[in-house]
């Protein structure tokens, strides 16, 4: 746009007869015109390219100045420098190679004001460029920073699936630019599982990282209508479940306790309800779900196998609205909205109502009073809350919390009271220190507890109480520094005070009494880490880092190098690799493969050496346009100092628990293939895993190596989501897995003495038997419409659509109904879930 230009030239006498000094007054004058004026006044001519000066204008008043003085003033806010050739009265203008600028800001959703995580922000030289000039990825707080940009004109593009692409021409001068962008939601929603680093023009960040949109969870089939994050993750290659009932994640041969499960940066020790049937995470409350299956960067630590990093919603800044769902198992409700212009909230709750259903069964006569009294009462509830306050454009404060409880009790002859759960809180302050430096500080509190009391009869000799509790107070600080053109540096520290309490008693105590009498282990856990995401060349990207720990209990110091790299063989073809070491100082000692609530978290001590893993990963990934992505990854992982209960563990009060643990090693390796159709009305993926998971414990299986219970040779998952028309969607998943490893006898024999003898089973190998393979098809038909004035989704889930009799458990049993004497032993296979159609209603208001 042509601006109104006013030029007033005042020619003095000396100016007329001398080229040395002159006066000059410029008012919003384009630089090109200003230079032409100076030429007229000074007789000096300028040599420059048109692109160099086209974006600048000048405003100044100068009196009695030389050419050089005039140029200093005129060019002072530009990246242009000059060389004067007095002999020829020429001035050569060129771009100052030392002047760089910084583009930074926060990317949000326009509608809700929620920040967008992991969104690529890309600068192109112009709109026709195929290759991006520079880029950055938003962090967990939506912040991005692109430093070291030569001033000039660029095309800025911000793309995020489900949002209209933002594109704008921007002019960067010497000054840094803050550019906050709010993306508009796309009318046509698309679903994808994003393998990070695989988007076009996006740098490699970490290997084996998968982001699952929370929207996707809503479209997947489920059992009982409750959408579960963990069950979606179990459909990814490299992630397995222990059983049909379990939502526990077994990632690349690691047990569930080897996963670092973070909710808003807070460790959740027990991420499952009902012994693993459902995860504790309410999908309605989540905004971002990211699983790192291995080779995780130095910013994460403390676990051997994987990281599941989930972020809660911040709460809409637009208006108060809500969402909810009702299904066969539980109901849930989420409310979010603004409190003030600068403050928003989110609160989300969920409750299982099995207890109410039994109550209804009693009231309607389905159960009689005796049956009702003897039926254990079970329910769970969880609550997610978050408050976020924007103090200034550079400062935000978040207060988030999670509270979940499982309650199981009985009132029969044997009285049980079991209560377990987590409570967490996180006060976080994020501060943009400079356009290149982002900091966040958190003060975290975690409380995990398991309480039980048992009363078998009225005598004190048949009672038992126990308590297991972990309380953590943690400080975490991290600085993210976009140092140069190709470096993103993160430095952070974590300091945790763990308090473990454990108590058992042969008397019934109140939990307070038990707490007072409990054995207390208090220990400090410190970590320091640094990592550099370094794009060495256009083709070669690396993430180099290290993590250092100190664990007070046992006085352990550990170092962990982390390295990953990616090399682009072609525009759509990349090879990747990583090597990492990880340590774990907290051990979940399990009794068997089912995660009972009685399983025990135990810290490293002088006798319990920290677990350690080393993992190597290589992979190749290929984009087929924007629509398809394929990856193949291979991994090899070794694990040391793994702990399980000994086969002959004794749980008598007074015997040190540490003496009951067997120590061993593990080995896991495999290949994962992932083919993902990301966009369109038909989306989904095909995953295949070929894997081996082995354990060697001197005190188990006679010291011989054995397969872990969840070792599964072949694992296939096919996920399809098809949208037909405006209102209907079909979600389908088909899974196949090699049967789990079980310990089974290979014979029976008689053993005893002259007085008595018994029939025993002859076991040759621990987990040496395979149960039949597992496969099933789940379907979810969804109708999007309006009911009761609310935007709604009605879903019909069909679990196990072709009614496959999948084994849940296999065991040898004595058939006492047989006429034979002695009664024969038979193999029984327990199948739990047949075809189960269920109905669910999700709504938004």
């Amino acid at each position, binding site marked *: 746009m042509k601006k109104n230009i006013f030029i007033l030239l005042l020619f003095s006498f000396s100016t007329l007869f001398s080229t040395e000094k002159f006066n000059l007054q410029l008012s919003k004058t384009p630089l090109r015109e200003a230079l032409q004026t100076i030429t007229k006044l000074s007789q000096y001519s300028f040599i420059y390219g048109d692109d160099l000066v086209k974006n600048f204008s000048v405003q100044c008043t100068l009196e009695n100045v030389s050419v050089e003085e005039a140029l200093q003033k005129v060019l002072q806010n530009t990246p242009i420098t000059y060389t004067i050739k007095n002999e020829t009265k020429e001035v050569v203008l060129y771009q100052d190679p030392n002047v760089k600028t910084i583009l930074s800001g926060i990317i949000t959703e326009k509608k809700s004001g929620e920040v967008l995580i992991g969104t690529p922000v890309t600068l192109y030289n112009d709109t026709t460029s195929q290759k991006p000039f520079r880029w950055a990825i938003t962090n967990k707080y939506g912040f991005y920073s692109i430093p070291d940009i030569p001033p000039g004109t660029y095309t800025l593009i911000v793309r995020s699936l489900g949002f209209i692409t933002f594109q704008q021409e921007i002019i960067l001068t010497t000054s840094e630019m803050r550019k906050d962008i709010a993306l508009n939601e796309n009318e046509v929603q698309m679903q994808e599982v994003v393998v990070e680093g695989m988007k076009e023009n996006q740098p490699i960040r970490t290997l084996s990282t998968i982001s699952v949109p929370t929207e996707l969870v809503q479209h997947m089939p489920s059992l*009982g209508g409750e959408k579960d994050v963990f069950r979606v993750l179990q459909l990814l290659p490299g992630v397995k479940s222990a059983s049909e*009932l379990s939502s526990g994640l077994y990632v690349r041969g690691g047990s569930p306790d080897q996963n670092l499960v973070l909710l808003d940066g807070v460790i959740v020790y027990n991420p499952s309800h*009902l*012994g693993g*049937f459902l995860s504790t995470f309410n999908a309605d409350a989540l905004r971002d779900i990211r699983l790192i299956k291995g080779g995780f960067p130095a910013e994460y630590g403390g676990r051997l196998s994987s990281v599941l990093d989930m972020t809660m919603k911040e709460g809409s800044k637009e208006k108060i609205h809500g969402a909810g769902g009702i299904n066969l198992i539980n109901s849930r409700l989420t409310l979010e909205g603004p409190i003030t212009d600068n403050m928003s909230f989110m609160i989300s709750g969920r409750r299982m109502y099995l207890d109410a*259903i039994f109550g209804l069964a009693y009231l309607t006569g389905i159960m009689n009073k005796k049956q009702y009294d003897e*039926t*254990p009462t*079970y329910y769970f509830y969880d609550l997610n809350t978050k408050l976020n306050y924007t103090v200034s454009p550079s400062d935000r404060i978040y207060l988030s919390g999670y509270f979940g409880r499982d309650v*199981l009790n009985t009132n029969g002859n044997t009285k*049980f009271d*079991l209560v377990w759960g987590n409570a967490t809180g996180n006060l976080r302050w994020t501060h943009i220190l400079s356009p290149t430096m982002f900091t966040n500080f958190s003060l975290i509190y975690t409380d995990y507890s398991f309480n*039980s009391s*048992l009363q*078998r009869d009225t*005598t004190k*000799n*048949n009672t*038992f109480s*126990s308590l297991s509790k972990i309380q953590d107070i943690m400080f975490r600080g991290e600085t993210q520094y976009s140092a140069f053109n190709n470096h993103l540096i993160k430095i952070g520290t974590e300091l945790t005070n763990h308090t473990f309490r454990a108590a058992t008693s*042969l008397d019934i105590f109140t939990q307070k009494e038990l707490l007072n009498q409990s054995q207390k282990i208090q220990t400090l856990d410190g970590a320091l880490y640094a990592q550099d995401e370094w794009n060495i060349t256009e083709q070669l990207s690396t993430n180099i880092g290290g993590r250092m720990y100190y664990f007070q209990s046992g006085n352990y110091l550990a170092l962990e190098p982390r390295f990953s790299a990616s090399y682009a063989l072609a525009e759509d073809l990349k090879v990747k690799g990583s090597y990492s070491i990880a340590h774990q100082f907290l051990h979940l000692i399990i009794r068997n493969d089912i995660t009972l*609530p*009685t399983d025990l978290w135990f810290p490293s001590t002088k006798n319990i050496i920290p677990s350690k893993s080393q993992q190597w990963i290589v992979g190749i990934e290929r984009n087929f346009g924007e629509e398809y992505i394929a990856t193949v990854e291979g991994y090899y992982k070794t694990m040391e100092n793994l702990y399980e209960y*000994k*086969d*002959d563990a004794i*749980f*008598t009060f007074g015997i040190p628990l540490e003496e009951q643990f067997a120590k061993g090693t593990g080995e896991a390796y495999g290949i994962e293939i992932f083919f993902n159709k990301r966009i369109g009305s038909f989306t989904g993926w095909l995953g295949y895993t070929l894997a081996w998971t082995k354990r060697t414990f001197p005190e*188990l299986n*006679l010291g011989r190596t054995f397969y872990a219970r969840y070792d599964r040779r072949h694992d296939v998952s096919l996920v399809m989501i098809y949208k037909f028309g405006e209102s209907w969607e079909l979600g389908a998943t088909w899974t196949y897995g090699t049967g789990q490893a079980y*310990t*089974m006898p*290979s*014979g*029976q*024999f*008689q053993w005893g003495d002259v007085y008595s003898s018994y029939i025993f*089973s*002859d*076991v*040759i*190998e621990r987990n040496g038997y395979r149960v039949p393979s597992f496969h099933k098809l789940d379907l979810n038909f969804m109708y999007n419409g309006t009911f009761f004035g609310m935007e709604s989704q009605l879903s019909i889930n069909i679990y196990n659509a072709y009614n496959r*009799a999948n084994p849940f458990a296999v*065991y*040898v049993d004595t058939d006492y109904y047989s006429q*034979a004497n*002695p*009664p*024969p*032993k*038979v*193999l*029984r*296979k*327990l*199948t*739990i*879930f*047949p075809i*189960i159609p269920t109905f669910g209603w999700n709504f938004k208001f």
Partner: protein
Amino acid sequence: MKTNFYHKKIYKVYIFIITLIPLFFGCENIIEGELPYTERLVIQSELQAGDTVDVHISRTLPPLGTYKEEDARITNANAYITCEGKNYPLRYVEKDFYTTDSLIATIGKTYELFVEWNGKKATAKTTIPPIVTIDAEQSYIKKQVKDFGGGSISYEYYGYIFVLSQPHNVFSIFIQRDNPNYYFSNYINTTYYQKENVLIEVQSGMIFVQSNPQEPQFYTFIKNYDEQYYPFYKTFRSSNGSITGNSSDAPVQWNVTGDAIGMFIGSSVSPAQEVKLKQ
């Protein structure tokens, strides 16, 4: 143990609860199946010092189906024992019982067993350990009385036995009352497996009586095993003591090798010594 009871109950309630969900959906199936069978010889022989050396030889049967003793019997095994370079053939007597007729187990001597049947072979080796005794002066029995009211009284006896043991001795303590039908024994465990001269508590368990009985006399004897007995004891016990009640959880550390399972183990028994009741 109460804690085991506790775990069992938790497990059962847990299983019950998770089973409630499928029950609610109305489905539970039990299907018959098959298991692979590996036939192995079963050898059982305790070579007690001073006794004739005998061996029981049988075989395992398929893991499913009825166990019939007569099907498991082996009557035509080729078996012998060697000691100090001399072979002692084992003669089949009856059922699964074989004997050397004349070979007497002697403390300090090493015996090797060789069995062959139907192409399957088994070997084992054991040494008869020395007798382990107690220090009767330092050992005593204590009585604990519990009155539950209503005339219900229980007596519990605790034996504190000072065993003159050596490291790596693997032994059991037996405390016998004057009533020969009643004795109580301890379990072998690692607490004193590695130690020398240890004081071991042996608990009788509760004896409910209606009136105060006459004070009994107690006698103690020690059975000392070849060291190979310890890993067998630990694994055999653990494989049959899981909380799920399944008796097939873990392999057992037998000392018979080859196509076989079983124990061929030497032992010695100390003479019974009286231990005083401490009031």
